[in-house]
């Protein structure tokens, strides 16, 4: 129960709390709920344009009327994007963190800082830099030429998506690595020393000491990468604009709602329809988070 407060004036406390709650309700909770309501309307992006409720039409259109293969492709691509980045990014990050945690490494902080740098530089600098490196006459093109092949990189139907996944991993790997490193450093060293006396191999130590004790960091990292990759599309927007088979659900939603990216329809901004799509994405994220929490809980008990 809340204690009666005798220290400070009640009105002052309420005055202090009010702005935060109001802004939160108006800017976050309200729009989130409205997003659900919007998905049943034919709202456009224009100011003052009339709109009406159209029931489930947006959902029907998304799942049945529009080209069936299109939306299956986009959802598949969204899942591949999230799955591949999450797994690869965390495996590499864990590997690098373990290496950097070796006792003999000098300049650990410097390497950590270099790998973390893209997070600080931000998505615009990252995307534009890689855009230049993957210029059709740039350094990578020259390397490919040695092997007798070529590619249009971010303009390539086949490889653009893979490159975007690469850039995404490049950008956020440092984040996961830093979290793993912090987790590793909290593992007491005498555990390994005890293992050494017992003659455990490197792999045994990793499997039986490191991984179980690192489990909280794994949980945080995997959850953050899944949610991040499912909902973020900034790199796609800044490199291909959603062209060349790279658009994910998140990208499609914003293209429909705000006309951004290179795939934006000339039909105008369909924000009701986009809201319905964002509900689909929300359900996908929710399902992932729930499955993930279920698996992690089970695993935690086993350990």
């Amino acid at each position, binding site marked *: 129960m809340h204690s009666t407060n005798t220290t400070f004036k009640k009105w002052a406390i309420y005055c202090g709390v009010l702005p935060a*709650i109001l802004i939160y309700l108006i800017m976050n909770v309200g729009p989130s709920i409205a997003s659900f309501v919007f998905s049943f309307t034919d709202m456009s992006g224009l100011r003052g344009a009339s709109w009406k409720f159209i029931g489930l039409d947006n959902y029907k259109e998304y799942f049945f009327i529009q080209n069936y293969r299109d939306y299956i492709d986009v959802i598949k691509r969204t899942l591949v994007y999230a799955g591949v980045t999450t797994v690869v990014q965390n495996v590499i990050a864990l590997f690098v963190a373990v290496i950097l945690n070796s006792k003999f490494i000098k300049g650990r902080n410097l390497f950590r800082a270099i790998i973390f740098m893209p997070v600080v530089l931000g998505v615009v600098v990252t995307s534009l830099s890689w855009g230049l490196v993957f210029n059709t006459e740039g350094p990578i093109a020259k390397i490919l030429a040695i092997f007798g092949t070529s590619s249009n990189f971010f303009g390539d139907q086949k490889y653009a998506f893979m490159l975007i996944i690469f850039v995404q991993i490049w950008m956020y790997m440092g984040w996961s690595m830093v979290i793993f490193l912090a987790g590793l450093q909290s593992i007491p060293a005498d555990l390994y020393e005890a293992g050494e006396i017992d003659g455990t191999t490197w792999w045994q130590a990793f499997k039986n000491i490191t991984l179980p004790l690192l489990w909280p960091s794994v949980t945080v990292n995997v959850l953050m990468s899944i949610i991040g990759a499912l909902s973020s599309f900034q790199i796609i927007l800044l490199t291909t604009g959603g062209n060349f088979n790279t658009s994910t659900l998140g990208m499609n939603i914003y293209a429909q709602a705000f006309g951004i990216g290179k795939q934006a329809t000339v039909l105008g901004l369909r924000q009701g329809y986009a809201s319905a799509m964002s509900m689909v994405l929300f359900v996908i994220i929710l399902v992932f988070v729930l499955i993930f929490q279920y698996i992690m809980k089970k695993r935690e008990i086993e350990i």
Partner: protein
Amino acid sequence: MKKKSIGKIVIYLIIAVLVVIYLFPLFYVFNTSLKTDSEFIKNTTSIAKSFRFKNYIDAWNAANFGNYVFNSLFYMIVCTSLSIILAVFLAFPIARNYFKYGNLIYALFLAGMFLPDGTIPQFKMLLTLGLYDTRTGYMLGFIGGGGVTLFMFVSYIKGIPKELDEAASIDGCGYFTFIFKILIPLMKPAISSMAILQALNVWNDILRAIIYLSKDAILPMTRGLYVFTGSFNNTVTLQMAALIIVAAPIVILYIFLQNYIIDGTLSGGVKG
């Protein structure tokens, strides 16, 4: 013994490869930014010979970069300080159980992190209120929310003894004076790490800047750079000079503050 040193070499080799993968893009951009346009077209991978620093001046003059820098700083400072202050004022009574339904509101704020994306209605609302394409409208979205920040602050304040409040109020210290003069200085570690997280978030934003802003005069640096590099009037070398203009201050700041920045994002990440 020999086996161990081979292992060391392999590990250093892996690190070296990583360092190259992480530093190459920036070096390549920097190198390109120092070339003349014809030099770049002739050979994209040659080392810059002409050291054309004039590219920077040209890029700076071609677009309103001084203005963009100012806007970014302005947005970053205002949004960060406001959201931190609001969160402190909310976190303190929650941590102390000083107001009714505090725990309920706390739970609501934390659950908010899992609500669906409300950008479309938010946009609609700001448009209707006439706040589209204004500084206020752009910043409002960064100020609310902050589930992670609130969580961090509540748990941090719980570690500060309650006797302090009583002592302060007996001495006749008002509530707002108490928060600003006593509580906030005590919360420095928590505040600085959350402030860094929030500041980075605002500084690097591009999505909201694309959706909510269009007037050139109020664009932040990210969007300015995006517009500048998207224009065919600007040569590649000029675009890269602009990119360096944007990236250089961050890199320099990062070199000095790397430990704070990494630890700040870390505490936000792990606790969130």
